[in-house]
């Protein structure tokens, strides 16, 4: 529990954690704080902040921006975490196979990874979402599908580093199976940098989701921050609050995750941390 204690002493990491917790709480209590659906038209169009009981104002249809921001936290967190998980599963699988087996397998997988890195991630994401129509699931899978290469490379590097360690060879001598060695011995030793990069992937996933929604490629049934900014873009002259507040929400959340992730990194693996940042 040394790690926990030193994290508690990590100032920026703690700031990140606290802010993140606030965002999580907002996400959880959204239905209680705003019992009326964020889609419900509750006021006149373009109600300025503070008027008509709307703290952050109303949008084009008279919907509560504050409710939207609160519900948007749920969407952003769910999509951010789920797609980072998806990216981790893909990336770790490919990186582990590549790093453990090496040789031709490694060569082919790394070429494939490069190929994926060649196409601009955002353009690929647009293409994938549009291809399979935007919904919660397709967005998560898409963001996962364009975010895994860095995780694959990291995992591969860790596996290359650990593959020839004594404890792996000892396990090999005892006749343990490949899967067992990979999951039971190598992965646990490689897990902390992977977790750190995954946590940072949550932040980029949130940014990616917001950009997709902004471009009109979000799930139309979900009130997300990117969607709100997109809806506010054309009316920025009439209603600045429609785009300013959701944008601030993204900024604060992403910043908090980054601070948290870096704090985690400093505490868990100073070596990787210094190299990366």
């Amino acid at each position, binding site marked *: 529990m040394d790690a926990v204690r030193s994290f508690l002493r990590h100032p920026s990491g703690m700031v990140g954690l606290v802010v993140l917790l606030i965002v999580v709480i907002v996400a959880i209590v959204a239905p209680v704080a705003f019992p009326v659906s964020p889609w419900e038209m509750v006021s006149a169009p373009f109600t300025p902040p503070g008027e008509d009981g709307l703290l952050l104002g109303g949008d084009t249809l008279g919907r509560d921006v504050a409710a939207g921001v609160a519900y948007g936290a749920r969407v952003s967190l769910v999509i951010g975490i789920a797609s980072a998980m998806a990216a981790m599963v893909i990336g770790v699988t490919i990186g582990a196979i590549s790093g453990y087996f090496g040789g031709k397998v490694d060569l082919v997988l790394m070429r494939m990874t490069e190929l994926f890195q060649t196409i601009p991630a955002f353009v690929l994401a647009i*293409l994938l979402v549009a*291809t399979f129509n935007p919904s919660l699931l397709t967005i998560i899978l898409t963001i996962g599908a364009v975010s895994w290469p860095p995780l694959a490379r990291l995992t591969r590097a860790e596996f290359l580093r650990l593959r020839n360690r004594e404890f792996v060879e000892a396990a090999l001598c005892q006749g343990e199976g490949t899967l067992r060695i990979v999951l039971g011995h190598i992965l646990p030793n490689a897990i902390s940098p992977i977790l750190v990069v995954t946590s940072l992937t949550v932040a980029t996933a949130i940014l990616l989701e917001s*950009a997709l929604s*902004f471009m009109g490629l979000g799930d139309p049934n979900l009130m997300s921050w990117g969607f709100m900014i997109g809806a506010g873009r054309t009316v920025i002259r009439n209603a600045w609050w429609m*785009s300013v507040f959701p*944008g601030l929400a993204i900024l604060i959340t992403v*910043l908090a995750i980054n601070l948290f992730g870096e704090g985690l990194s400093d505490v868990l693996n100073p070596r990787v941390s210094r190299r990366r940042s």
Partner: protein
Amino acid sequence: MIRLGNAATIGLMALSRIAQLIAVILLIATFNFVLVRAAPGDPAQVMAGQSGASDPKLLEDLRKEYGLDKPYVVQLASYLGRVVKLDLGYSYRQRRPVADLVLERLPATLLLTVTAFCLALLIGTTLGALAGLAAGTVLDTVFTVLSLVLYATPVFWLGLMLVLVFSVTLGWLPPFGYETINVKLSPIERALDVAKHLIMPVTSLAAIYLAIYARLMRSSIIEVAQQDFIKTARAKGLTGPSIVFGHMLRNALVPVVTVAGMQAGALVGGAVVIETVFAWPGLGRLTFDALLQRDYPVLLGIFLILSIVVIVLNLLTDLIYKLIDPRMTTGAA
């Protein structure tokens, strides 16, 4: 291993990379084709739909015109054959050769991305180096916080906020477009006019990369400063600027250049959003429009061109890498 001269090593490497490049391009072409064609939606339907009226004959004509009635394999083969000949095909919707469409949009995108890239690299590394050299001071903290905030800012939102402040509120900068059209301007005035339109898009696009490069440069400088050869140089009596410029910067730039090369693709991705916000007439908008309209040949053409651009940038980065980091040359051969 025979130790080759620097130039020869680089030459060999470039050759093998070019061979790889061609293979990768064909692979990407195939990948693109499969991906784009996996999409639901019939381009003939879209074209017919946009006409506000439709009938079977129109659909049949359109499918025949664009070879959509042939099997996929035949379409793929003819596509690859044309790619080899550098013929990017013909746009369904715009009824023009794809190469023309891409080429006329490319300059605006290059202007935007290259300017943003250079600015981000220049300012980012400068700020990062300053922060790194002044590590631990207030200046360092300010830079660090600023870069963290920029790094967390959605590109499109930053663009909107700039519009809100500098166009809507202050009225200083044009909120959209590439240039003021239909006014007769001298070449210099025109350049200034374009530059004025360029400020906000470039700033929005550059911000996040500026933050990344600054952070990288900062930690890189700190790391390099602790390395033995700097300590040796200091021990030899070298001081101040000669250490900073001769040794530290050169070495500290290595990871920044690596990352910058890898991010060329991401920069182009960012351009898609920024061009939407600022109505910038570049490739990014063309991509998005083509996507919504399922204009396959244009999409395939853009992806191919972007992929080539990114691969070439990666290759260039490798070369620069070799040039600024002499330690790498022997190892590479």
